[in-house]
């Protein structure tokens, strides 16, 4: 009974937060509500017995996306010269829905409710018992080299998806770079407390990432989660004023970015040559191979996320003068 109450409240909380986040008059409020929404999503994953997803959501959905959005909003405020302080920090005149007739508004709401009802009916009508692929996964788990079924699916059974996934991350960086590159911006002075905080926290983040990576073989965790936590450490460092040296921005950075993708490609070619089968690991070596892949992927994911944050938050040259004028 209490569980029901909890789940119902969580479900309504999610819907309500989403509604307010999407329709509040103030963009900053919208982002804070969205961060809160991410927190509740992680609770939902926990309730659905998906701790791996909860970890990913905690690291990415609630943490990094929030930081990205906040940083982007701050830059947006600086660019469009909006009033940045006070009660309604980011009022957006165009945030209100365009004035449509009551009729069309009503029609839209009717249409949307009908689609929710349709989807609900479709979900309701699904066969009440389906195990999906859990049996197949369980049957082959011993041959996969890891004990955590989610890691087994991600890195072995459907490792090809993960390979393409690494390319998606790389593509995002390329796309962001092609928009205007990675010009550095003189930073505002960093408060001493931030510096100390980041100095204390960074090792903890690294430790947590290593733990998640290691434990991912047999318990919830793995490359994506570890990479996001490590990437968050990078974001924290960037926020507290740390900038990689120019020398590091060249090939070491590029190497780190492509490590995961490159490892997958090399392994793919190797398995194609030796086993005549793409991405087939020999059973005896599977565990070690997965750990190696995951470690490199963790580095790549972390660097990618940190770079994406850096590009969004410190953006482009033309806009950097603001801090210096003071």
């Amino acid at each position, binding site marked *: 009974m209490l569980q029901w109450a909890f789940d119902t409240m969580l479900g309504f909380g999610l819907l309500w937060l989403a509604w*307010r986040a999407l329709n509040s008059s103030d963009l900053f409020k919208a982002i804070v509500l969205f*961060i809160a929404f991410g927190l509740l999503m992680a609770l939902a994953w926990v309730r659905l017995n998906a701790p791996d997803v909860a970890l990913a959501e905690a690291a990415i959905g*609630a943490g990094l996306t929030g930081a990205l959005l906040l940083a982007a909003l*701050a830059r947006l405020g600086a660019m469009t010269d909006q009033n940045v302080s006070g009660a309604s920090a980011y009022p957006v005149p165009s945030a209100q829905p365009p004035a449509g007739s009551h009729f069309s508004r009503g029609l839209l709401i009717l249409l949307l409710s009908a689609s929710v009802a349709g989807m609900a009916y479709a979900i309701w009508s699904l066969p009440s018992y389906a195990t999906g692929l859990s049996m197949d996964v369980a049957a082959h788990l011993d041959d996969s080299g890891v004990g955590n079924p989610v890691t087994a699916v991600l890195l072995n059974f459907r490792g090809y998806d993960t390979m393409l996934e690494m390319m998606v991350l790389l593509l995002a960086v390329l796309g962001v770079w092609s928009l205007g590159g990675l010009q550095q911006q003189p930073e505002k002075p960093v408060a001493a407390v931030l510096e100390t905080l980041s100095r204390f926290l960074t090792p903890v983040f690294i430790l947590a990432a290593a*733990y*998640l990576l290691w434990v991912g073989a047999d318990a919830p965790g793995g490359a994506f989660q570890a990479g996001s936590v490590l990437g968050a450490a990078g974001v924290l460092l960037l926020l507290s004023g740390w900038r990689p040296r120019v020398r590091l921005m060249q090939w070491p950075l590029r190497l780190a970015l492509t490590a995961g993708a490159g490892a997958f490609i090399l392994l793919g070619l190797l398995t194609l040559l030796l086993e005549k089968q793409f991405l087939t690991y020999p059973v005896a070596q599977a565990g070690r191979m997965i750990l190696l892949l995951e470690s490199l992927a963790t580095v790549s994911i972390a660097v990618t996320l940190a770079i994406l944050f850096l590009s969004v938050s410190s953006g482009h040259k033309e806009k950097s003068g603001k801090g210096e004028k003071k």
Partner: protein
Amino acid sequence: MQTLYFALALFLLLNLCAGMWRVLRGPTTADRMLSAQLFGTTVVAILLLLAQASDSPALRDVALVFALLAAVTAVAFVQRVWPEDKESERDRG
């Protein structure tokens, strides 16, 4: 015992609604951000309770990641949004 944990979790979830009110009301950006941080803390507490209730230690890892990542959004706020705030106040003053 399980019931107790769930009752507590439910209570904390209700607490979130109180925090929600602060997010919606404001009046300053810091109020909103702090209540979001409170959100994070409460969620960590709920996670720990659920970990006890459902006897799955993995949830403690989730709570750990949450606690760590809360620092990132807080710092992002302080470093990106808040200083601008003070500066523009100084400009006007």
